[in-house]
């Protein structure tokens, strides 16, 4: 403990956890909040031919899930490089 290497790994892990929590907050919001808990409230609004809550529960949440994973991939690849923990292609 205490070496620069360990500190780096700690910082990498903290950045990872923070990113993860933010993305999971969005995950929870679009599915459990918009698609289930607040669905009746949102259903009074229209989104093209859909009721908004219905759209979130049957379409919107799935699109957001896909985006979330790719944001995670992109951010994590940057973190890997930044902290020098990226796996090398020839190792």
């Amino acid at each position, binding site marked *: 403990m205490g070496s620069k290497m360990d500190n780096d790994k700690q910082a*990498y892990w903290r950045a990872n956890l923070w990113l*993860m929590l933010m993305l999971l907050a969005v*995950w929870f919001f679009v599915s*459990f909040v918009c*698609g289930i808990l607040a669905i009746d409230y949102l259903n009074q609004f229209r989104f093209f031919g859909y009721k908004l809550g219905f759209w979130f529960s*049957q379409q919107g949440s*799935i699109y957001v899930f*896909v985006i979330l*994973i790719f944001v995670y991939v992109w951010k994590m690849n940057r973190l890997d490089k930044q902290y020098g923990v990226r796996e090398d292609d020839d190792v």
Partner: protein
Amino acid sequence: MSVQLLTYIFIGLSFALYIGIAIWSRSGTTKEFYVAGGHVHPLANGAATAADWMSAASFLSMAGIIAFEGADGARYLMGWTGGYVLLALLLAPYLRKFAKYTVPDFVGDRYYSQAARLVAVVCVIFISFTYVAGQMRGVGIVFSRFLEVDINLGVVIGMAIVFFYAVLGGMKGITYTQVAQYCVLIFAYLVPAIFISLMLTGNPFPMLGFGSEMVGESGTYLLDKLDGLTAELGMTAFTEGNKSTVDMFFITAALMAGTAGLPHVIVRFFTVPKVRDARVSAGYALVFIALLYTTAPAVAAFARINIINNVDGMHYSVAPEWFTKWEDSGLIAWLDKNDDGKIQYRGGAALDPLKPVFEDGRESDGQRSLANAPSESENELYIDRDIIVLAHPEIAGLPNWVIALVAAGGLAAALSTAAGLLLVMSTSISHDLMKKCLMPNISERQELLFARIAAALAVSIAGLLGIYPPGFVAQVVAFAFGLAAASFFPVILLGIFSKRMNREAAIAGMVTGLTFTFSYIVYFKFISPETNNAAHWLFGISPEGIGTLGMLINFAVSLFVMRITPPPPQEVQDLVERIRVPR
């Protein structure tokens, strides 16, 4: 050409393709057999994961369930996709870094305990058998309806194909056949959906089509029209649900955590070369899955409209061929309550008991005789939900080749999932049970032989389950997700994110979570099914959603026990440090 001939051609061609791939990708080592050598490209792994994951339930049953349940069907759509976010962010990259072959491997090593490993093996085998039985029913339905062969013969043919490429090719063979099966199944799912979307709304994208205006009725949105029709017939409006909010919440959460904890899905992430490949391949997998999952609710809405428009008020004597053929298969039934010879489709169940019990002989209009009593409602029509995807192209009057294509797609979905499940079962037996517990000194070749024998055995048992389906198959599917959510998900998650998490806490958590979930489901499904309703459920949570509570109990017990027992040994803490970083 007739539907039957076309179906033979399509299924024959697809089977030839799968066998060809299996011969090309034989496995020579245990690493190839268990994880395809760890050389699978992330894009290929994404497609294979999607086919592995999307079963007969996703392909055949899901749109049918949504067609009849409307808004309530969202629990499957969100639950079975949202789990991939958990998998990608919380599990896949770390398990890939751990770099072993199975889920029990992780549980056994991380918790330095053979007992924990054995509990995990038992869970893997139980979950997988539950699941595989459902696939065989799907295979049976397709064969009996479209090829008019005996269901048993159909199951035997399906098993022979899976046997061939799973036993010969192991994970390597399965991976590349699954890629091919994904292509077949998604093509088969999208083509009829696009056709029907164009017919009803003029929009070639079904996921947008069901939010568009109807062809020939400008200003009328399809979903509003459907809400109007369903209300008129005394049914729950399509965009409204019947389930309570708390139950929807718990079921969706159980399906998500269960998805992330299913061993045959997790093991796919062991097959890619790098940690970052595991992350991105979860993304690809979800894109491939989302293609079907965003189309399914559109198919559901189209099917419901088409059934109402084409069937309600129709005279039985002029019923189309699809109607009478499905009636012959026992999956459609009509009870003429008011003796007017017309099929009346209304809200509520048509029959008492719910499922049709056919008698020999026919009634005056030619429909099959039923032993069921008429129910209270005016509804005269029983339609099994599992037939919607298969029947819809016929209902909409699409060309024969589309109908045959859907049959081949349904088989691809069922076989790809069955193969993935059979592989994790055989791996659990040869690797986790034989090599790691009972006979640690066996050679690589002997282990591979055990893996093949176990795969052959598992295929045979799965085939028997298909031929003699236990009456409780549908009942126990809730088990698979509930148990995965209450056992593997918390144990793996805490194993990665808490260095303090130890053997005692893991075993205590798994045992309490499993016991609670298992007893709750057994009580309501088998011991006291007559009380299986919201009034008797704990906090209004149905057995389908109880896995979420089991998971919370597992977390609570683990976190408590972990604080009053000694921390794990240093080398295990080092292992946790190591899997947290890619390099």
